[in-house]
């Protein structure tokens, strides 16, 4: 039984670290938020394992549920204000803010150049 607990805690701990890293490193903001919500739910499980059901309840309800909902509405508004799609700005960590509307990302520039001149662009 103790071994099972140890294994469960180890899987939980590594999943938390992995989810946290993925949420921080994801260039897709929508994906990052979904990962953050998953992180919150697993964190609630970790609080239960630490015998803190009060904190677990608060974490699941506020940390995962409401913060996730708030982040998703914020993302929707960011997209609306910058005229972008659903936060799907792959390959660009700064998501849908105004800066990358003015400066298209490197891939897009490359594609534009290709279309205009028909020659290979080196960079």
């Amino acid at each position: 039984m103790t071994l099972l607990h140890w294994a469960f805690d180890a899987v939980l701990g590594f999943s938390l670290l992995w989810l946290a890293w993925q949420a921080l490193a994801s260039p897709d903001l929508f994906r990052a938020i979904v990962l953050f919500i998953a992180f919150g739910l697993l964190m609630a499980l970790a609080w239960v394992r630490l015998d803190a059901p009060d904190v677990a309840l608060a974490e699941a309800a506020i940390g995962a549920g409401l913060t996730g909902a708030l982040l998703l509405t914020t993302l929707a508004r960011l997209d609306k204000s910058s005229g972008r799609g659903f936060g799907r700005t792959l390959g660009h960590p700064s998501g849908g803010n105004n800066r990358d509307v003015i400066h298209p990302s490197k891939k897009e520039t490359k594609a534009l150049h290709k279309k205009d001149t028909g020659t290979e662009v080196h960079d």
Partner: protein
Amino acid sequence: MTERGKKQLPFRLLLVALLFVLTAGLGYAVLTLPSQAPGLSNPVVANLEASGVSNPVTAVLLNFRAYDTLLELGVLLLALFGVWSLAAVPECRESPPGPVLDGLSRLLVPWLILVAGYLLWAGAHAPGGAFQAGSVLAAAGVLLLLTGWRLDTRFSGLPLRMSLVAGLGVFVVVAVVLILMGGRLLEYPPSFAGALILLIEAAATLSIGMTLAALFLGARPEAGP
């Protein structure tokens, strides 16, 4: 890209070194912690009788350290003030909700309100309490807002504001009355400490639920006549 990478290399090494120092420091701190640290749990257990509730977490949050909870409610209210002063007029919903969202919200919202009430009541003797109940209430509000429901303009003026400040207001009134009665700040008389905690938690649950749902709406609702 490679030039930029070269320029960043010293910074990256510095970052790695700093992170390594931080990890080592944290590891050392955790490993040197005493394995049995009772902290303040013994005084809490000793005074649990006088607190009016049997759940030690609620006793700490609403009685022994009630001042912290009072300030937390204040912070939550301030956050809403900030959002309301920043945001523009609320926009209307673009599309009607799908049948799943519509049906599920009708089914879930009464349950969520019931669960919030249970968590509030259970907080006296089991895990639960105002913040948990309030956030479940807020989840019901978020679900309703997602389906396109908006508070009637008759209620979005003074009634909404009253419910938003009710938690902090009741807390402050209780504190002031207790001081006027000759006690110290938020020092409940043991005979009706339980009733006072329930009163404060009930008002706080309503306020927390309304504040979090209002934060989700993200703008000040327009008040009508």
